[in-house]
């Protein structure tokens, strides 16, 4: 075990796979010589060579297209989209092409592309360096959607994603690269000493589709993913109410048993995400929980989310769900 932050653990995952599988190729804007604007691929080109880890033209659609082709022809491409906000020029290649290839070809072809992308707010990135577009991928059958939250989950999930034979969109909460974020911009810890910063140097996996129950309690189920897992943890503490905290990790497919069993136990549910509320993945979670746990619910399922507005710059702390809003929602669920 080594203490790693999330950048280091992601780097370690990539390094392990470059080492063990000659078919793994890593590419994207600035990921080669420089090692990525967030340094996730730092040192990998030098160690594994420019044919394994390289820069590309600045065209997300083209990057996705070549990844599609490589995956179809026997490789295991890992492409980076520099910010999740810039994934949209590649949206067609992802939702119309990658997602449907296996099905449309009657299973003759498939393409195991992994799309890594830093997502979410909290870095004063304004409209276009802060979005968290996970729900825009969860609606498309054929792709898996993963959102890691800490160094340990980042590495274990990324290895699973790359080894998965389906295309996976893999979101990394950039706000948490160097430390967990508890919702207070004035108090920013690093990963040092955090239980999830103990990361094996070697290969290990966290199965896609499994959630992580990070806190246990009996009065309310809080479901979150990405950076919001930590903010939710703080919100739960602030509320003083005993809660299950489920780090969902995999959004498609999501962990039915973990979620349903918890809500049946607690009878209450709060869902937290930083993307806008309308048609965020919280809507799916809420609808599904309601369908499966209706007769166990003691109070309305709450959603604490980003607002239905573009992501602002100066006022981002008023945009992102705060521990306070989460604590209030948890308290509201206890009222009846």
């Amino acid at each position: 075990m080594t203490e790693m932050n999330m950048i280091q653990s992601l780097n370690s995952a990539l390094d392990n796979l470059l080492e063990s599988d000659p078919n793994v190729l890593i590419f994207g804007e600035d990921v080669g010589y420089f090692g990525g604007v967030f340094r996730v691929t730092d040192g990998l080109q030098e160690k594994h060579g420019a044919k394994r880890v390289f820069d590309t033209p600045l065209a997300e659609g083209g990057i996705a297209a070549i990844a599609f082709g490589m995956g179809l022809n026997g490789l295991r491409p890992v492409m980076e989209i520099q910010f999740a906000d810039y994934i949209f020029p590649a949206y067609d290649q992802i939702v119309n092409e990658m997602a449907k290839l296996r099905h449309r070809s009657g299973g003759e072809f498939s393409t195991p592309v992994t799309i890594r992308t830093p997502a979410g707010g909290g870095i004063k990135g304004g409209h276009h360096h802060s979005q968290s577009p996970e729900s825009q991928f969860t609606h498309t059958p054929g792709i898996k959607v993963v959102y890691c939250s800490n160094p340990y989950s980042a590495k274990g999930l990324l290895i699973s994603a790359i080894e998965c034979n389906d295309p996976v969109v893999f979101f990394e909460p950039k706000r948490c690269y160097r430390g967990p974020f508890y919702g207070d911009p004035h108090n920013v810890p690093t990963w040092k000493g955090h239980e999830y910063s103990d990361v094996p140097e070697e290969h290990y996996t966290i199965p896609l589709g499994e959630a992580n129950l990070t806190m246990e309690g009996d009065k309310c189920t809080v479901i979150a993913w990405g950076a919001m897992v930590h903010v939710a943890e703080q919100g739960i503490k602030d509320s003083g109410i005993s809660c299950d905290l489920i780090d969902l990790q995999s959004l498609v497919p999501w962990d039915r048993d973990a979620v349903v069993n918890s809500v049946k136990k607690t009878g209450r549910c709060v869902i937290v995400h930083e993307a806008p509320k309308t048609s965020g993945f919280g809507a799916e979670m809420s609808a599904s929980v309601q369908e499966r746990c209706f007769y166990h619910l003691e109070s309305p399922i709450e959603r604490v989310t980003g607002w239905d507005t573009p992501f602002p710059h100066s006022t981002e702390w008023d945009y992102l769900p705060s521990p306070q809003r989460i604590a209030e929602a948890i308290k509201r669920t206890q009222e009846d």
Partner: protein
Amino acid sequence: MTGDEPGCDLDGFTVPDAPSRPGEEAHFEPWTYTPGDLSQPDPKTCTSEDTTDHAEGLIRVLDDEGVASGAWNPNLSVDELHLGLEQMCRLRIFDDRMMKMQRTGKLSFYMRSLGEEAIAISQTMALQDHDWLFPTYRQPGCQFVRGRSMVSMINHCIGNVEDNVKGRQMPVHYTYKDGYYISVSSPVGTQFSQAVGVAMASAYKGEDQATITWIGDGASAEGDYHYAVNFASVFKPPVILCVVNNQWAISTHKNFASGGENFATRALPYGIPSLRVDGNDFLALYSVTQWARERASAGMGATHIEILTYRTGAHSSSDDASRYRPADEHDYWPGGDPIDRLKNHLILNGDWSEEQHSELEQRLDEEVVAAYKEAVTHGDLANGPWPPASTIFTEVYEEVPWHIQEQREELGK
């Protein structure tokens, strides 16, 4: 290059039009390109600049009388020419039959290669058997060259229980992995950029395997065209990028696909050698493809090819071309018909006759009818049996996840 007609008035930008519309007389500028006039650069050393003439001109081997000449004459054996002619005829007769079946509801939809048969047949013949094919819906003929059974192709088109893609895609959206023929996808252009990644993977694995891909004049306006050419120019993988300029994109004339007259020259600034070829000239197509393939083998990277042709039929079975162009426009196409031209060449050389041709057509017609009859024994779109409803739920992912399993149970079929 032209396309620099005086621009817009200030009371409005320019909106182009087609050269002729229904009710007007069809017209094409006569070609000034002489068959045999262009040299053949050495594929192993050729730079993009060396192909300037080839991109601005037109590579032709067969003249209007059927005489073959020049450096680009591939000098094929009579057997090869017979085979090419047969495959083109097979494709045309197959298409005719499918169109008839479509009208009876056995297929939901159909698209012919009419007038463009030489492309899929000749180019695939010029490649190696394990080279990857990334076609549009207008090159299904590749599959004949690669040996796919006609019955299997029809099964797909009529979406029956034997369709290898399990009734999931529209007709003509073939998948044929054994023939290195990618699953055709409806969104136009997407396969063009994907092909570059396929070729990069082949090169990465150290295999002597090329990838060929086609895109329409219309679809070349998509971002994918630019991605493909540009990524190919940067990474130099063994890919052959073909723009099939057949003058039309449904009802939209190629004057809307670009303000320039020429698609071939577009690749030169990217440092990619580019050729422009008469798409109805079987021999010229064969040899430009072979040339590009040699570049691939030699590690020289991508070749770009504009294939100049004419979409003789309507866009698809849903289309009526006479609503937007003169119904006889194809008669005026300077490139003639690809089957007629190869046939005339063979006859001129004493290697073929009208009688042999009629016999061939009759044999192929019987072959198609037999295949058709066999295919419908497995069902058709109008009457079933179709692939079972359970195939909706499989192969979305490698394994069926719980939520899809639940839905399958909900449907209960």
